């Protein structure tokens, strides 16, 4: 655990709304991107003298292209409903982390330059010039929003602060003040194909290693194919699944499910990343460029279906935006939604009775489930609204004997962000991440005390990495967070394939 130069919040039994304490997080700001990370994305390398003019021009451009931005900047009545809904406010007490406080940082500039009231009576309506100080505040606080949309659930007009954070980051990128973490990563996707910069041969190695491990463990030859032209399914998964714990156990699980389904599938070394950080920086153009890689891979590999692995924001981009950004998908099999979530796939097989589970394999755990914000509030699974809550839970119930939900106020559409979403999963924001995780960890702690929960399952690469890192700050173990398909992987009873040797076969049956 890294050295801590801040106070880790105390966990309480009942959620408390803290008192407003201004500027507690004014110092929190991620590293600024160097020119070499800005330019590949089409952004200027550094702040120019006329930055203010350019920023206002960009704001005007976005106002004319995004109805959300225009309507949300106009509509807030300062009712206060959202003020206690953001995990960053709850964890830091900084009023600029209240959703409306965050919006107002942009609203005051909007009013000054784009409304009559702000031009003539700036003091009255809280309009302000876009000064260097305001820009500094933007950089701090628009990088303290994980774009989780919890605020939008409770706002009478559905004002989504994520939309405003995205626009702010887009404006800042266009004047040369980008965030290093996001922009460097997007550059890697363009150059190598994934966020982690893993080249094709490294992926091949990893996947072969997985095949060996699974064979050793189960005696069944489960395949983890890469770049297999003509496979039926293209699996697009976050690159963390290739090596990080507990992510990789999820990938093992996907392979086992495909094996049981008896379908051919493949990963792509070209589109070896489900994540799309273009969304975090609010850049339609970059998000589209990243998404197009999936289209190209699907065409090149001649697949019929696309399935996404466990990742929250990736599923938002996939479910909600992929058709827009990289469609139409008329060359794929029209009998299946494009794309599908791996949970939809697994759940579908369960319904058809094609999967057999030995739940006792997970008896060493008592589970709870963390709804990832982008899955919960920005997408869906299955054919009815709310499937994104019920399908993962149905899978857990089918694979585990012990499952308890956390407090109703902290799950489903009201779920709390892990604290690391929205492009904030970087070490230079550790204090923010730890403090922002508090509401979620508090709810987890309560079910641990009350129900004896030992593990929390998640279906998001960012959530998994974030919890692995921050749980120890709260005195918990990093391996208390598990992949949902890790549970599937543990419980699934594999059917030996034709090429499995007889002795393996027997061993498997004995084990079962």
């Amino acid at each position, binding site marked *: 655990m890294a050295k801590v130069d801040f106070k880790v919040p105390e966990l309480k039994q009942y959620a408390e709304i803290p008192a407003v304490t201004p500027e507690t997080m004014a110092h929190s700001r991620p590293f600024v991107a160097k020119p070499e990370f800005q330019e590949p994305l089409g952004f200027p390398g550094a702040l120019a003298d006329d930055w203010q003019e350019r920023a206002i021009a960009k704001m005007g451009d976005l106002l004319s292209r995004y109805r959300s931005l225009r309507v949300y900047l106009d509509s807030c009545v300062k009712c206060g409903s959202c003020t206690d809904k953001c995990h960053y406010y709850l964890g830091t007490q900084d009023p600029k982390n209240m959703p409306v406080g965050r919006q107002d940082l942009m609203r005051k500039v909007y009013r000054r330059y784009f409304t009559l009231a702000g031009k003539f009576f700036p003091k009255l309506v809280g309009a302000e010039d876009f000064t260097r100080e305001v820009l500094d505040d933007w950089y701090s606080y628009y990088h303290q929003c994980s774009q989780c949309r919890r605020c939008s659930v409770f706002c009478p*007009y559905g004002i989504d602060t994520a939309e405003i954070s995205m626009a702010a980051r887009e404006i800042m990128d266009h004047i040369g003040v980008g965030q290093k973490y996001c922009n460097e990563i997007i550059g890697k996707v363009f150059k190598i194909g994934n966020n982690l910069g893993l080249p094709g041969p490294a992926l091949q190695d990893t996947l072969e290693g997985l095949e060996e491990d699974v064979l050793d463990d189960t005696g069944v030859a489960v395949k983890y194919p890469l770049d297999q032209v003509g496979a039926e399914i293209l699996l697009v998964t976050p690159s963390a699944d290739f090596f990080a714990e507990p992510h990789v156990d999820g990938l093992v699980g996907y392979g086992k499910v495909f094996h049981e389904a008896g379908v051919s599938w493949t990963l792509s070394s070209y589109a070896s990343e489900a994540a799309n950080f273009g969304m975090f920086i609010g850049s339609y153009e970059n998000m589209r460029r990243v998404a197009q890689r999936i289209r190209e891979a699907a065409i090149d590999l001649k697949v019929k279906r696309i399935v996404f692995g466990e990742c929250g924001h990736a599923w938002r981009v996939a479910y909600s935006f992929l058709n827009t950004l990289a469609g139409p998908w008329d060359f794929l099999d029209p009998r299946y939604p494009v794309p599908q979530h791996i949970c939809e796939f697994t759940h579908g097989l369960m319904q058809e009775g094609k999967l057999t589970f030995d739940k006792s394999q997970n008896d060493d755990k008592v589970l709870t489930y963390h709804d990832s914000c982008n899955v919960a509030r920005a997408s869906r699974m299955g054919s009815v609204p709310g499937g994104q809550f019920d399908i993962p839970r149905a899978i857990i119930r089918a694979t585990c004997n012990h499952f308890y939900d956390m407090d109703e106020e902290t799950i489903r559409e009201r779920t709390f962000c892990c604290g690391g979403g929205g492009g904030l999963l970087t070490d230079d924001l550790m204090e923010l991440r730890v403090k922002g995780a508090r509401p979620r960890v508090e709810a987890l702690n309560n079910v641990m005390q009350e129900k004896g929960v030992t593990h929390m399952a998640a279906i998001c690469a960012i959530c998994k990495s974030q919890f692995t890192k921050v749980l120890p700050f709260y005195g918990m173990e990093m391996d208390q967070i598990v992949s949902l398909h890790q549970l599937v992987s543990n419980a699934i009873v594999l059917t030996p394939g034709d090429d499995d040797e007889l002795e393996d076969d027997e061993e498997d049956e004995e084990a079962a």
Partner: protein
Amino acid sequence: MSFVTVAYASLFYLAAAVLLAGLAAKVVQYARTPAPLKIPTTPAPTTQSGVVLRMAREVVLFESLFKGNKWIWLFGWIFHFGLFLVTLRHLRYFIEPVWLPIALIQPFGIYGGMAMVVGLLGLWARRILVDRVRYITGPSDHLMLGLLVSIGVSGLMMTFVVHTDVVAVKEFFRGLVTFQVAPLPSDPLLLLHLLLVAVLMIVFPFSKLLHAPGLFFSPTRNQADNPREKRHVAEWAKRLEQQP
């Protein structure tokens, strides 16, 4: 014709013009601005009729606000519902003969007026007492509450304390509608009440009162959750597709 009558007639023509033109301009601006991505806050209805229902629940019941904060919901809803009744009650000044439902609603309009003031005072109290709401409240928010409370109180005073010649008031407003200006009684309370209403009409399109049209254009609320079934592409985004 008295100076007061001419002044108030002109004021109301001006206020009506500003309100209508300003709102129309805003609505056109909202409608013309594309929403390039599907961003409904989920779980969301999957069909257009489902969206209409969701929107109706937001407009009539303030569903999201109810989820968010029961006090704000209570005061906010009381105020808006009161305002709605008051508005219906005031329709009698503009139509002749008065429609039956409007005639029936008259007594409720008075309760509406009281409810309106109670709701507003509750909301105002929160602005002062709750530290988070105090932090986000600016001068314009206090002014807006002051304006609305003054309109409500001056109106109620004319009902309960200092009566005015409502028949003449009706003549005046009927006259405005038919472009034959009739004299307006010059009771100070009435003049104050009407002045404040005109001010409200004028500031409407330039203030946070835009939340009224805004709600209907909010993409997180008015979009159906069907992105996989239906491709959604904005005009400006189509141009990106033309490029290789």
